[in-house]
Structure formats: structure tokens, C-alpha cells
């Protein structure tokens, strides 16, 4: 359970919250 919950919390929850911050883009067609 700790592994699955860890993925949900870190990847989904923290990842979604982080995506709202003004980080530089990772995609190829942007500097």
C-alpha cells in the first residue's frame, strides 16, 4: 500500500500541483 499510495501522492498530487508553477518548458519546440 505504501508504494501505490506513494505513487499517487508524489506523481499525481504533487505532480499536478507542481504543474501550475511557472517552470521552464520541457518540450522540444520551446527554448
Amino acid at each position, binding site marked *: 500500500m*505504501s*508504494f501505490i499510495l506513494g505513487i499517487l501522492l*508524489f506523481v499525481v498530487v*504533487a505532480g499536478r*500541483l507542481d504543474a501550475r508553477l*511557472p517552470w521552464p518548458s520541457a518540450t522540444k519546440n520551446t527554448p
Partner: protein
Amino acid sequence: MAERHEEYAVIAGHFGFAAAVKARAPSVPLWALMLACVWMDVLFVPLFAAGIETIVPLPGTQGGYGEGIIHADYTHSLAGALLIAVTFGLVAAIWWRSSVALVLGAVVFSHWALDLPMHHADMPLLPGNAGNFPLLGFGLWRWPWVSAVLEIGLVLLGTFLYARAASRAVEAAQPTGAPARTRVRYVTAALLLSGLVTLGLNWFGM
């Protein structure tokens, strides 16, 4: 009994390391870093379910935190880890810049490097332990408290470095952006709580 022991591995520490990497490689999405850092374990799950890779309790123990011999002879072999990391990086390069893919591939391999000091000697060089070379693992798990402190230390360090980098990114983009600063606090709190919850459950065998 086997599935009872599937969770007793390093988990929170990998996520903490991934948060620290985000601070140095801000263009790499955090969710991708978090997925990359445990990708070897994600691949372990179906092999474990199929009985190809297993975990057995260390003799004389109940198989609690750090008391498992992990026979992940494919996903956690040195050559297997390198192959998994390269594959992950190549797939990431389809959508993202090569520098981003390189970081993600390295983070996938960091899983093996971080497991090495913790594991009992159960990590082979080649998949399936071909060649019967000596198994690797420095066995810090013999001292569970030390292992847990190191894991939580990685979570705290990673969260601190992430929060500092995120604050700087927000200041640069929106110097007066109070909502963005609040979002930084949300992510920081999520990282800390996630680390504590994950390690806590892991410690108590859940």
C-alpha cells in the same frame, strides 16, 4: 506470504531524491521525475505478481522494514537497470528535449544507485544473475532506524531544495504573485506529507 513483503523497500527516499533533482533541472516535469525514480519498482510489480521476482524475509526476521531479501534479478540487476533507464530516456525523448530525457534516464538509474547501499546483498550484475557473479548490496537495512533516518533525510533535503527553487521561479515570473507563492507552499506541504505518510506506512508494514 510473498505479497505480505512486497512493500518493504526503499520508497520515500527515491521521491526525495527526485524532488532534489527538480531543483537542479527545473524544466523536467516533477511528475515525470517522481515516476522515473520508482520506475524500476513499477516494473517489478508485474514480475512479482507473476512469481518471476520475489521477496523473502531475511532468515530469523518477520520480514519487516528492511528485513527482506529482494530477488529482483531482472529489474534490479545492474545491466537491467541500465537498460530500463535508457529505454525510459528514449521514450521521454519522443516528447521532450534530449536534455530532459537524459535527466529522466539518469533518475531512473538513480534508483539502483540508491538501493545499492540499502539492500542486503541481493542485487545481481546481470539479469537473472547470469554468470553467478557476486550479488551486490551494502546492507544498511541491517540498521532499520539508520535506513529510515536516511530516507526521511532525503525527503527533507529534496523538499527544501525544491521549495527554494520553486520560490525563485515564482519570484522571477510573478514578483507580486501571491497565489503562485501559495501554490509553492501547497506543493512543499504535499511533498513533506507524502514522504512522511509513505515512510510511516512502509515502516509499519503497510
